[in-house]
């Protein structure tokens, strides 16, 4: 359990940085409110709380990914990380310490977004447990991606890469606009990535679809989650042994 001390430090470092809290919690809620108000004015179903919840949660994870990547990249360049490499911590400890705190933050993000959506008229017809599972899988997927970016890039590069992923999630995930409206090659790229699958699956389950109905989308999400997390873990493990 040596990793717990470093994990606790990483959690404190993140939540004590006011900007992190604004981006991870405040911004997704502002987006939800903004699009909900837009939906009210336009009478557009796309912007109801039920449709917005999956988009806002997964969009929020993209900020979490960016912050975790920047934190890791900054730490790797620091002498504190050098000091930690001279302690009995093993690669697995570093991987756990740079992923588990962000899973906790992701769970908090999900709870806050659910609470806000409930206030704005969230309707849950399907199994909420499956929605939660999809969200957690996407959180782990993006945390793995953050670990990969933070392991191979410098702080500045991680900042740029993180911003690019945020844009990908927003545009190619179909957060605010159905991908079929974009069409063509961008729709194909969007559905070659996990974000749109996760958002579609969560929206469908909230509207009454079963696990079987969303199994294809879920397989895309699981595949990317396993791939990104392994990639991130391998890269961080390699950096701690380099």
């Amino acid at each position, binding site marked *: 359990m040596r990793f717990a*001390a470093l994990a606790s430090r990483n959690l404190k470092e993140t939540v*004590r940085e006011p900007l992190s809290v604004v981006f991870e919690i405040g911004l997704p809620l502002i987006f939800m409110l903004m699009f909900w108000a837009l939906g009210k004015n336009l009478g557009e179903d796309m912007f109801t709380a039920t449709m917005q919840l999956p988009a806002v949660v997964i969009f929020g994870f993209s900020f979490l990914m960016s912050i975790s990547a920047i934190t890791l990249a900054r730490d790797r360049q620091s*002498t504190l990380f050098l*000091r930690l490499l*001279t302690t*009995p911590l093993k690669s697995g400890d570093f991987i756990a310490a740079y992923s588990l705190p962000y899973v906790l933050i992701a769970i908090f993000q999900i709870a806050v977004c659910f609470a806000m959506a409930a206030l704005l008229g969230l309707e849950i017809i399907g199994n909420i447990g499956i929605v939660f599972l999809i969200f957690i899988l996407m959180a782990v997927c993006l945390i793995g991606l953050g670990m990969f970016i933070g392991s191979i890039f410098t702080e500045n590069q991680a900042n740029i890469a993180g911003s690019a992923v945020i844009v990908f999630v927003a545009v190619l995930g179909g957060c605010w606009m159905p991908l079929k409206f974009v069409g063509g090659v961008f729709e194909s790229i969007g559905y070659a990535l996990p974000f749109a699958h996760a958002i579609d699956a969560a929206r469908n389950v909230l509207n009454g679809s079963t696990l079987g109905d969303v199994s294809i989308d879920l397989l895309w999400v699981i595949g990317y989650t396993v791939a990104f997390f392994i990639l991130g873990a391998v890269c961080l493990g390699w950096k701690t042994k380099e």
Partner: protein
Amino acid sequence: MGYIEDKNNFAIQTFNITRKFGNLTAVDGVNLGVKKGEIFSLLGPNGAGKTTIIKMLCCLLRPTGGTGAIMGYDIQEEPLAVKSIIGISPQETAISLHLNSLENLELICGVYGMSKEETKKRSEEILELMSLTKRAKDRAGKLSGGMQRRLSIAMALVSDPLVLFLDEPTLGLDPQARRSMWEQIAGLKGKKTILLTTHYLEEADALADRIAIIDEGKIIALGTSGELKNKIQDKQIMIVKAKNLTHEAIEGLRKIYPDAREIEGGVEIRAKEISFERIVNYLHSEGTKIESTLIKEPSLDDVFLQLTGKEIRE
């Protein structure tokens, strides 16, 4: 062969340890033996190879030749055993800025697997030792540079390591903070084996039991401060500050003392034996008005100058 037999009571040993970076040889076949409880200083200019030696001994960098041992454990074959008994304070302050002083120490206790009770006890002891008790709950980022450095060393000490590596522990500190840090380090004498790197001669002189002078990756001299000073041929140095000191007067002085050299506002004379009276009489005869004279003991700076032909801060 993880454990190297420790016949000589050495805490740190290197055996022809070498590290090359491409064509550059940063550390070139260094052999060292640091005794248990000793404060040992690696003294040399920037780029001499001091930090590279520490990185290899802390298992952060693999030697490209030779090896080293900490308390008998080979640094390449038993890195986990080595890591469990060492503490390091890197050259730059290595602390977590958003954590307070106590939390920084708890972080290190945690990664060494110490119990809650042990963590509390050790953290309080170390905060006291490093005069940080009053700032225990203050965020590390809000501490002064000197306090941050003390916290960094406290983090190296809190796990109660047998061997402590202090890499340029007073670099960038003001003279007052440096003095204070020296007192803290001197307080550890005999309790911990300490390998201290520095390019401050007075630091090595004040703290170290033995000093190795390192230049271009090689140890060029090793001994106590006194032993090193005895190595130099010029046992006496006289500095004369004077007015009306002409070039001709200095040239004349060089006929008696060939190593006499002009310095700002005067002349420095180095020789095995210096005749105070002879120099003063000569300068007076040349019409020089002497303002002050000083005969000083050779310093480590003089040792370094003699051994390498250059100043340590060049």
